[in-house]
């Protein structure tokens, strides 16, 4: 049984949703930002929200929390880490993923259900998908414009793109999510944890959590 750990920072908003989503496939528990101990979890979700108020710059302060130091170590030793929205911003700030998330070109918060295309299934969090799959998943953010300097763009391990002209924030090359070179750390702006039930939207987000479980039990 896979155990997911979902981090709770002060200011996290989507940690309970992530917990519920992960429970479709395994056990899940909250990890407190002041604890260094990851409690032996198999996979870590850095959830959405406004960690530490997102003051100064999105994700800037959360990356220095005690729990994130352990997550960085966990990630470097191959542990599975998924950063969603604010979690993606934190992972970029922490240098666990390349790039940065800038304010949306339209400068406003945007909440919308949209399609994201799977670019790579060679990551721990997309193994259950196929390249070209379009997942219906909502976005909701003010700073989701993915940016890397041009000379690093070619090296970025792109995992998701906004499908059919749906780029909501001006991200470079429609990039919605990226992975580290090893594929164990993935970050994305859309919210798969909010796409796990037909009653509240779609179920396409389940694929990511399913992937993490599959990764642990190689066929």
């Amino acid at each position, binding site marked *: 049984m896979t155990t997911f750990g979902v981090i709770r920072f002060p200011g996290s*908003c989507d940690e*309970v949703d992530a917990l519920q989503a992960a429970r479709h496939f395994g056990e899940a528990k909250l990890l407190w930002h002041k604890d260094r101990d990851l409690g032996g979890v198999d996979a870590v979700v850095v959830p959405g929200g406004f960690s*530490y*108020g997102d003051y100064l710059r999105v994700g800037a302060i959360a990356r220095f929390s005690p729990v994130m130091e352990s997550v960085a170590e966990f990630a470097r030793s191959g542990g599975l880490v998924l950063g969603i929205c604010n979690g993606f911003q934190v992972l970029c700030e922490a240098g666990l993923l390349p790039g940065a998330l800038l304010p949306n070109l339209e400068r*406003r*918060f945007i*909440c919308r259900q949209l399609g994201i295309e799977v670019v790579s299934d060679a990551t721990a969090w997309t193994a259950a998908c196929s390249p070209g799959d379009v997942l219906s998943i909502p976005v909701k953010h003010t700073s989701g414009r993915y940016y890397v300097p041009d000379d690093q763009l070619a090296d970025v391990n792109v995992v998701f793109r906004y499908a059919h002209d749906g780029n909501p924030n001006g991200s470079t090359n429609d990039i919605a999510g990226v992975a580290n070179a090893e594929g164990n750390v993935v970050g994305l702006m859309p919210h798969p944890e909010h796409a796990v039930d037909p*009653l*509240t939207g779609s179920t396409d987000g389940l694929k990511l959590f399913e992937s993490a479980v599959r990764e642990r039990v190689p066929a």
Partner: protein
Amino acid sequence: MSASPPSPAAALPSVEEAVALGLTAAEYALVVDKLGRAPNQVELAMFSLLWSEHCSYKHSRKLLRTLPTEGPRVVMGPGENAGAVDVGDGLAVAFKVESHNHPSAVEPFQGAATGVGGILRDIFAIGARPIAVLDSLRFGEPSSPRSRFLLDGAVSGIGHYGNSIGVPTVGGEVYFEAPYEQNCLVNAMALGLAESSRMIRSAAAGVGNVLVLFGASTGRDGIGGASVLASAEFGEADEDKRPTVQVGDPFEEKKLLECSLELLERGLLVSLQDLGAAGLTSSASEMASKGEVGVEIDVSKVPLREADMEPFEVMVSESQERMLCVVEPARVGEVLALCHKWDVHGTAIGTVTDTGHVVVRDGDRVVGDMPVAALVDDCPLYDLAPAKPPQPLYAAPVRTLEPGASPRETLLALLSSPNVASRLPLFQQYDWLVQSRTVRRPAQADAAVLRLPNGRAVATSIDGNGRRVACDPYNGTVANVLECASNLACVGAEPLGTTNNLNFGNPEKPHIAWQLTEAVRGLGDACRALDAPIVGGNVSLYNEAADGPIYPTPVVGMVGEVPDPERAGRLGFSETDPTRPDVVGFAGPFRPHLPGSELAKLRGEPLPDGLPAADVAAVRAAQEAIRDAVRAGELSSAHDVAEGGFLVAVAECCLAGDVGAVLDVGASDDTDRLLFGEAPGGFVVSGPEDAVRRLAERVELDVFGRVGGDALEVTVGGERIDVPLAELREAHRALAPLFP
């Protein structure tokens, strides 16, 4: 009663100062009488706030007493921070609406943001976890730069606070009318979920118990705000009266919320109260009053953001994101430790006493000492002197549609009218999905639907067309209540309870008093007739500018029950099987009229003096028929007719479902009235033919055509209106340019 003034016996404020703070000379004399001496500065500041309109409801309380507040599902009625209704399985949904009109007119972003923060605190102050926000907004016409500025700021502010704190904003409403140009309205409603047995009240209890203040530190925010902001009419020369703007900190509130709920979960609190208008003054006095005890507070213990604050400033500061709780002495350590866990400042600032007085100390010095009853109960309540105005109060709207426009042109003009056009540009700035409860989001249905942990769901809607009420305060208010309940019916919900926000002008003027009196009468009658008791609300008066009062705007919010969220209704037509298209029915005791309608506004027609009375019982019966059909899963869509009338409602069903319809509505002697007239009680439904016909057994119903195609085609009296969906959609996008 303490006859000698507390030390130091510095120069006591004069009656002139009392008047500048908003008290009348007679009220000041009454304060002196109740104290047995003249109040000092701390005491006067506290009296002036607690005796302000905002805190004392001195011009509205007598009217509010006429409202129905009881029902089998009411768990908490008016008087607490929020009302609550039973939703089964030991769960309760708490809800309340509150206004932040004047702060928003000064600084729309922070005003609206702190408005959301304030209503959320009211919800978690009774131990409920906030699960939804709705916003009700009124601005001048969008052609005015000021209105656009206020709109943009208010929408961003609501989003900023709600999104950051992780509470979805699932619904709301916005109207644009010239009388709101100077006085915008920003009302926010919130819902919360609690286990009924865990809910907590605000009454202080237990002599010797400790008062713990927790949350943000106290600064000079909004000092004098409650009395100056809420009671003064806005004028051009108001610059120097501007109080310090309160800045909201949703991050602090998020911690405060989690901390409060965990304190309650662990059973560490005797009572809990948020700090809202008049800050410590009102929260401490009201806790003492409800518990029939006294309190003693030491202002020197209150953590300050600014050094050198005077005791009276500490007592009246409206700094946001603070709560006050009563704790048994033995548990104080645990309470402070939990505050520390959440990085929230917690400080013991006083005790519960048996004196029946509010005593304010600054260290060793007593700087204020007043009987609780004098502060909270003895403010005089005023009778209104209502008189119907002899002439119209409001200028005719500016004409934007030329006479003689064809039905097609009229339809497109209505769809692009700011009061009808798609609200997507607003609500896409709100997180409507966090917490994974949102079964129906904005624009999917007439009411938002939120599922509950017990497998059921609640629906919620907020409504309050002020123009109708300006035409006829009684019938207009009844129509607002009916519309709110109709919205619930369309998703299959039965009303459990109602909240309301009475936004009016200066009640000391007879014609405003008349509007208010008639509106409250309509509100009470309609809620009684629907068995939708009022569990809470708010009153915002003095919404006037040099050019006159706002439209009288009683905003009505309801919460209803949906037994099966899988069957929650939708408003959009759907085309599942083109070979067996759904039929479109028009149901209800609908008697449309044009005067006062959106079309009349576009035509620049003056407001009529009076609206036809609705047959409330017949509308209720229609709501029940629709509700039952939706709950039975018989219908594909249901949508009530509101601004713009029947044809606009049909167009909205087409746009929401992205499919056209072909209708023949027969002949009419007054096409405009039939297509665009407004009244309560009309519903556009669609579904399989047999299901729609079955509905006709319970409610007046005509089948007008079927769903399908990519245009809205309507034949009326031999004339054909044919508008492609794309053209409808383009007209409906009219608000998008307001958010560049």
